[in-house]
């Protein structure tokens, strides 16, 4: 398995676009310096979002012709700061700044069984894995979960290619994914410790799976996941950050992250991954008015429940039950 975490920038030309599902656009890029993208790889794009250059990551759904054609599937984020909207506006012939394939979600070799779980747009990270497992003749199951069929990209194609190995769960058809049944099924199977799960989807699904995985005492390293780094338990809303040591309060708009808002306000904070994985941006919480929507995968469930710290890059404060409180939620942070 190759883990390529080296990034270098190049230009990519848009050679094809089409609609994959409601709100999901397919964008095919032809990079300057083609490198084959192995399953699980993504590319980073540098996008100019109203004057700010921002990095956005997109999984490579398909790498063809030695990486000369990289297919991405992009979902329009409901309250987008512009990344996905920009991607949806791309036309054939447009040129974007992009990295070579970055691999931080590699598919292993040698497990007895593989379970791939896609929630919503997370399917983009798993299409190539499923193809590879099929080619290997591996024992695998592909679980696809979504809110409505119409928004589920690649659904028909995957069912056609993978047949019985696909299991589809659609909320509005009342065929919901039951995490306990899924993970319990693995724990009760013939090879519970030789089964690897690869999961990509909204944080709530991910948290539920992680909890069930731990509860069933399955080996933690066998649960692999990638976070797309945006969804939370509550919709993003405006909130306030109090910084008593600096004697300041900063408002975080619903279209900004806490980290961005603090930096925009001139507060120097440390960060690295900016997607809730490394924990470098972790700070102590002194007080909360409302709820903390953690959105990270660094803190353990127990750490999250005590509200003692949060990851600045992804966490938000929320009123929890809007309508009750009219004041925006607030957190008080210890920033020495």
């Amino acid at each position, binding site marked *: 398995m190759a883990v390529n975490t080296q990034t270098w920038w190049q230009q990519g030309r848009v050679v094809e676009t089409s609609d994959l599902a409601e709100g999901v656009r397919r964008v095919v890029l032809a990079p300057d310096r083609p490198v084959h993208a192995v399953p699980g790889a993504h590319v980073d794009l540098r996008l100019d979002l109203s004057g700010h250059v921002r990095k956005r990551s997109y999984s490579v759904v398909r790498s063809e012709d030695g990486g000369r054609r990289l297919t991405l599937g992009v979902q329009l984020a409901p309250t987008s700061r512009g990344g996905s909207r920009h991607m949806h506006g791309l036309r054939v012939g447009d040129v974007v700044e992009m990295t070579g394939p970055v691999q931080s979600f590699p598919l292993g070799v040698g497990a007895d069984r593989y379970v791939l779980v896609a929630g919503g747009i997370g399917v983009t990270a798993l299409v190539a894995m499923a193809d590879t497992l099929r080619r290997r003749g591996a024992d695998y199951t592909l679980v696809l979960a979504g809110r409505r069929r119409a928004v589920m990209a690649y659904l028909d194609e995957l069912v056609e290619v993978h047949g019985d190995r696909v299991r589809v769960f659609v909320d509005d058809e009342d065929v919901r994914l039951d995490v306990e049944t899924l993970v319990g099924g693995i724990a009760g199977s013939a090879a519970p410790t030789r089964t690897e799960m690869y999961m990509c989807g909204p944080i709530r699904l991910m948290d539920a799976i992680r909890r069930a995985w731990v509860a069933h005492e399955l080996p933690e390293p066998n649960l692999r996941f990638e976070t797309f780094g945006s969804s939370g338990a509550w919709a993003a809303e405006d909130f306030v950050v109090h910084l008593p040591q600096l004697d300041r309060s900063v408002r975080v708009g619903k279209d900004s992250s806490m980290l961005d808002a603090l930096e925009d306000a001139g507060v120097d904070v440390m960060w690295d991954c900016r997607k809730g994985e490394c*924990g470098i941006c972790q700070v102590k919480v002194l007080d909360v008015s409302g709820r903390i929507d953690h959105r990270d995968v660094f803190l353990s469930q127990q750490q999250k429940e005590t509200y003692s710290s949060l990851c600045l890059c992804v966490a938000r404060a929320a009123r929890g039950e809007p309508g009750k409180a009219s004041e925006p939620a607030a957190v008080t942070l210890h920033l020495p």
Partner: protein
Amino acid sequence: MTILDSPPVTAASKIFNFPRNAWYVAAWDHEVTAKQPLARTIADRPLALWRNSDGRAVALADACWHRLAPLSKGKVLGDEIQCPYHGLRYNSAGRCTSMPAQETINPSAIVPSYPVVERHRYVWVWVGDPDLADPSCVPDMHQMDSPEWAGDGETIYAPCNYQLVLDNLMDLTHEEFVHSSSIGQDELSEAEFEVSHTDRGVTVTRWMRDIDAPPFWLKNMRDRFPGFTGKVDRWQIIHFEAPSTIRIDVGVAKAGTGAPEGDRSQGVNGFVMNTITPETARTSHYFWAFMRNYRLESQTITTQLRQGVHGVFGEDEDMLAAQQRAIDANPDHEFYSLNIDAGGMWVRRILDRMLQAEGLPAAAAAK
């Protein structure tokens, strides 16, 4: 484009590139242990090799996910290896299993792991596309662990491109000049030879009839036929299997007793087992052994043969190192070929087609 329609190579690249989609020997089986990881670079990939608690050999990239400290300097702890620097642990798939200073494990914490097969007393690794790693493609070296053969060998760390070693073994007329005191004799360069090939193999066959046995072979004949004197028929049948394994079926039999026709009962037979693993473009791990099919019980003969071949191959090693230095000192000079290079040139063509199939150039990148 299939392998067969690709255009033939014309020029002989001096620093030959190596295929990645291939099994290479990384180590003798006994070198890889559950006690201490072994550091070895295979086809430009630095690896940490170790065994987990069920005895399975494991190959991980020799650089920690965190700050790239070499895992080979770490500890094997049952089914895991621990980084020597900040204590991250990895399982045999390369997945991090423990980050001591936090309650969770970063989902992207993984180091590359490589497919491994143990066969013929060696640990083989595949550094290319893991989905193509088919254990049935491990080169045939069955004499290494067959009950009908006995022998042993060593590893030479050869300071040269692996293709120079292949060239050396595909043409044995050099024995007359490089190994004149042991196995060389004038008849070698006089004897006719025949070259045949398939798409993964090359065979060079040479018979020398009714000749005097050189010192090495006279000793072997006497081990089996005490007091032997007289002429012999001598053979050298070189079998190359891609990408870099060469078994040489060698021996002598009492002259005129039918060895060329297939009856070797009046002779002694050995297999010189060679498999060459590129370490970098200019360095190689050269694993060799000498296996014989007579006097299997004698450890003395095993030791004597290993020491004898050790001396012979030491002469090759000196030549190969000097050749590589001269190549590097003369970057503008080309290789020319002689009639005796036919076997080596077929090897190059097979390798060149493997490289093309992987989209790699035939010449390794300049240092």
